[in-house]
């Protein structure tokens, strides 16, 4: 295992931001840490980069326990580089930024210059070598930060929301760079994102984080609402004052619910009334994921439904089609 985390806890001022019972990350893969804002993604990356120590629990790196108070920490850091969500470049030239990691590793000047050129070529910014780093745009800054990280020849590269602050054009460039470094250098790459599509495009494995815990479910069907009970005592969660989802348990009042996309059924084409189901909407997106298809249905809320490939074919689902969706109480979990 590249990383193994056991009973890891990190708290900030009495708020537990990470609570991971067990998590293993294998070497040589691209992992996507997927979760909403505040789910602990950045904290987890900083701990994996040995920049932040956990309050409890153990971390094993390459099957060896990590001592966060030890002198070996710097040597471990030299194998793992974190690129922050909004990277800062040192107030000097682009090439000196890329050179920094090599300089602290006491790499000879000639080799440094060669590596800097290679890395700037890789991110397509060779012409910017002598430019002042603080004059670059957000996307260019992100690319220089990636080049600076790669120049250190790390075993693992950690990318915190690598495309969160860049425009669509640079987003594609950054994603291509990530794919390229994986295929060319065989690095282990762990990136965070709250973009399900990006995680699906880039990651070989996805770890879902919710409220600091890895979850088996998908986080995207998480809604805030108010739980109430009808005259027959049946529970429901009213979302945005319009959508009633049945719930089996829960206390009356404000709550967050997670709808399991595997338990939602697309019943047929047409309206909810006609199909006897509780929701209806238009198919907005279809994503093939091996044996299954991820269907994004706009029911007034973005609802993700996972259907088997055969079912997808049988129902002739396509983008823009009107569908009725049945969301049973067992699919709705109060969290």
């Amino acid at each position, binding site marked *: 295992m590249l990383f193994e985390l056991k009973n890891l806890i990190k708290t900030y001022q009495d708020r537990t931001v990470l609570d991971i019972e067990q998590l293993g990350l294998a070497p040589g893969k691209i992992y996507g840490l997927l979760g909403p804002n505040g789910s602990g993604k950045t904290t987890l990356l*900083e701990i994996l*980069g040995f*920049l932040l120590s956990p309050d409890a629990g153990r971390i094993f790196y390459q099957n060896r326990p990590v001592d966060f108070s030890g002198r070996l920490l*710097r040597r471990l*850091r*030299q194998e*793992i*580089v*974190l690129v*922050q969500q*909004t*990277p*800062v470049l*040192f*107030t000097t030239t682009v090439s000196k930024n890329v050179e*920094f*990691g090599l300089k*602290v*590793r006491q790499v000879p000047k000639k080799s440094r210059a060669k590596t800097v050129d290679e890395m700037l070529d890789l991110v397509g910014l060779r012409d910017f070598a002598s430019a002042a780093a603080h004059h670059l745009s957000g996307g260019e800054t992100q690319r220089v930060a990636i080049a*600076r*990280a790669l120049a*250190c020849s790390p075993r693992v590269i950690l990318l915190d929301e690598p495309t969160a602050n860049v425009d669509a054009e640079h987003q594609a460039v950054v994603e291509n760079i990530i794919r390229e470094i994986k295929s060319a250098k065989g690095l282990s790459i762990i990136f965070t994102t709250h973009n399900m599509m990006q995680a699906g495009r880039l990651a070989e494995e996805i770890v879902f984080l919710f409220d600091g815990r890895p979850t088996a479910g998908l986080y995207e069907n998480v809604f805030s609402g108010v739980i109430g009970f009808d005259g027959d005592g049946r529970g429901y969660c009213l979302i945005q004052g319009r959508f009633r989802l049945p719930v089996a348990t829960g206390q009356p009042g404000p709550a967050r619910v997670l709808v399991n996309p595997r338990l939602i059924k697309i019943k047929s084409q047409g309206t909810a009334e006609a199909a006897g189901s509780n929701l209806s909407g238009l198919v907005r997106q279809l994503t093939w994921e091996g044996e299954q298809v991820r269907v994004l249905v706009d029911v007034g809320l973005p609802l993700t439904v996972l259907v088997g490939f055969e079912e997808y074919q049988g129902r002739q689902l396509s983008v823009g089609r009107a569908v009725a969706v049945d969301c049973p109480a067992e699919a709705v979990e109060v969290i």
Partner: protein
Amino acid sequence: MSLLADGLFSALLLIKSLDPELLSIVGVSLKVSLASTVLAGLLGVPAGFLIALSEFPGKRMTVTVFNTLLAVPTVVIGLLVYTFISRRGLFGPWDLLYTQKAIVVGQVLLILPLVITLTIAAVSRVDHRYRQTALTLGASVLQAAAVVLREVRFGVGAAVIAAFGRVIAEVGVSMMLGGNIKGFTRTMTTAMALEYDKGEFVLAVALGLVLLTISFTLNVFLNLVQGRIRT
């Protein structure tokens, strides 16, 4: 009005003639002020760095104490150091009183809080990600501190220049610990005070002009360097 105009005119003539007494006073002033600024910088910048970057109980109180020390009058520092270096003082046998070294000691104590507080302010303002970036790129703790220092170099430079401006213009410490001895511990400010007492304004005005020119030159230099590097 004619007193000021005559004084200014004569002072300019004195400066132009490179009067030996004037040059000696300016030389002593620059020597002790530079020495005390360098020493205060060597002590104060790392201390400010440590305080800004580390977390310890009583940190806020420590910063408050240094802020309070900014307001200590120069004569109080002079008096305090005097009690230590006068013949009956703890360091009396070292014969420091009325020497340039005594002025330097007093001036260091005077500007140390200034250098420390301005360094703390500069380092506290710097984005913590610079340090984190340096560490994740494999830097040691010291190398990461050097990165932060590089990022706050203008703030620290301004702190040191402000400190130099404070000591070159102070009179209390130089007078009480230096004794205003001609050719030895007479600084620009003590000489100006003496000339005023004597009713001789020409040398006082000339020294005032030199003092202003030095401060102005330093600030222009700092602005030029900042401007060139930032654009």
